[in-house]
């Protein structure tokens, strides 16, 4: 997956996996400090714009986006939902989930795009 693909999923420009199933995004509250970096990096624009898109009321009835309070909950939700995609600190992954390469790189790879301070 490319960073642009991830951005499209977060912006709801891409809503289905190639097999047709609806993508469910599982993330922490977009207002949390940890999410600011991801929103800016993956969605482009400002964190405020990104938050507004993620918080759009129209997404909620279809359950295309779920906000949870911890990385542990993200991992558990993704483990239980085969159409879900989540974003967590790499130190919180388990073997119950797959880590998706972004722009052909995984966490700890040199030049991995979702690394910040």
């Amino acid at each position, binding site marked *: 997956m490319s960073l642009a693909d991830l951005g499209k999923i977060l912006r709801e420009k891409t809503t289905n996996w190639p097999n047709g199933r609806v993508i469910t995004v599982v993330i922490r509250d977009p207002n949390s400090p940890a999410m600011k970096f991801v929103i800016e990096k993956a969605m482009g624009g400002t964190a405020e714009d990104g938050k507004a898109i993620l918080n759009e009321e129209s997404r909620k009835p279809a359950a295309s986006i779920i906000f949870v309070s911890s990385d542990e909950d993200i991992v558990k939700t993704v483990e239980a939902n085969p159409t879900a995609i989540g974003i967590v600190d*790499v130190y919180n992954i388990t*073997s119950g*989930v797959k880590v998706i390469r972004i722009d052909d790189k995984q966490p700890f790879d040199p030049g991995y795009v979702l690394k910040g301070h």
Partner: protein
Amino acid sequence: MGFRNTFEFAIIAVFVAGIAAVSPIARAQKSAASRKISAPAVKSDTVPVTTSSKEARQDYELGLSHREDLLFTEEGIDFFRKSVKADPHFALGHATLAFFTIDPPEEVRELALAKASASRAAPDEKLLIQWMTGTKNGQLVPAIAAMNDLLAKYPNDKRLANMYGEWLLGAQQNYDLAAKVLEKVLKNDPDYYPALNNLAYSYALGGRAELAPPLMDQYVAALPGQPNPQDSYGEILRMLGDFPDALDHYRTALRIAPTFFTSQVGIASTYALMGDEERARFEYLKAIDMAKERTDRMDYRILWAMTYFRENRPGLARKAFAEVAAEAHKQNLPIEEAECHRDTALFNPDSESAMNDLDAASAVMADKRHILVGTRESELAKILQTRSFIAVRAGDVDAARKALEGLNSMAQTNRDNAVQDAYHSANGAVMFLQGDYSGAISELEEDPRDPLSLQLLADAESKAGQTADAQKTLKTLAAINDETVEMAVVVPPVRAALKSNGSPSAQETSH
């Protein structure tokens, strides 16, 4: 400037776009796993240990209690060696020895033996082996996943969580997460002393030093007859600049256990930091006599040689380092041999001659035998970073670019923090020399704990007109109290300049 934490996000899924065809298998696996979960199982509180030898099991346990609980590191490693001798097919024993040893050829050998015998281990034990070996060979994503699986399965295995916290603290320098893991252990058992020790270091190194001494008091009270609490207290106080009290604690540790050599080194290094180099040499010689591991002995010889540079006696220093390098060569310790040349370069006031010293260091690392690729590249990265620092000192942009080229190709394939940090530092050095100060600042901030990078960062901030930031960075530098060569080269001139209200630059740090 406070130390910034690096974070890295993972995108996770169970069912990934483009691999829809595998989903039935995944479902079948999940179903099988559910069936297993539903079966009644009696499980221990700790990760299983599989060996056919009672002696191997006993030695393994003694190794853990010495290495992990009481910090008798050499004795602990010796017990691990005995355990794999008693059972040569003991996979977890080999993995543990590979994880803890400081001897590069032993590390290579034991990793291979752990891999070869892993099939004999129990499933959960395999996860621990995967974590231990993965952290050594760069397979960090599956290693972390394996550790989190284990922590979830064995929430009462304090030693396991402490070992993870210690790795986050030492190898990953992820002080906040280490603190979080260790705080959780202590919430369940407030007196678990190995976690008290590691949590104090997590706070001290992570910018919350004021929280460390109370934990040290608790650690000392929990183990009144043991040397390590006193040793750790000494080191924490030394980091905070309280040298007299640090010496008291180190001496108390040695009164409790006269062979506890790390406290002897602590005393020597404290004298070195206080500027009493003659006394430091005397104390280092005692430490060299006390240490059993050849790598420890050689590392202390390097610190001993460095005292001559610290007191500005370059002729004696070069002679001492040349002798130590020759001995390291004789003993097949390439990292130590290369370090001798690199240290000499850092203290060399003549840039051209310093580059020759670094050529000698690189030549040592050209021999690829008996050393893991990662270990070799970490040292090479340090050598190249030093080259770029010296290039800045000389205003030599070509030399800095050349060092960056070497690091760039290494950083494409090596995920190790040491390599990545060195790359950013060298990139910052090139940008600095090209006058791109804001680019340099951004790059140098990626390596916020290395005194060489901090010195360049202060210079770049100063050149960019960010005077307040530059002063803050210099104050961070001046507060560092450790025994590394980088600190010995960079920090004393910074302290002197701050005292006289000046702003020293990299160009002025050559001794």
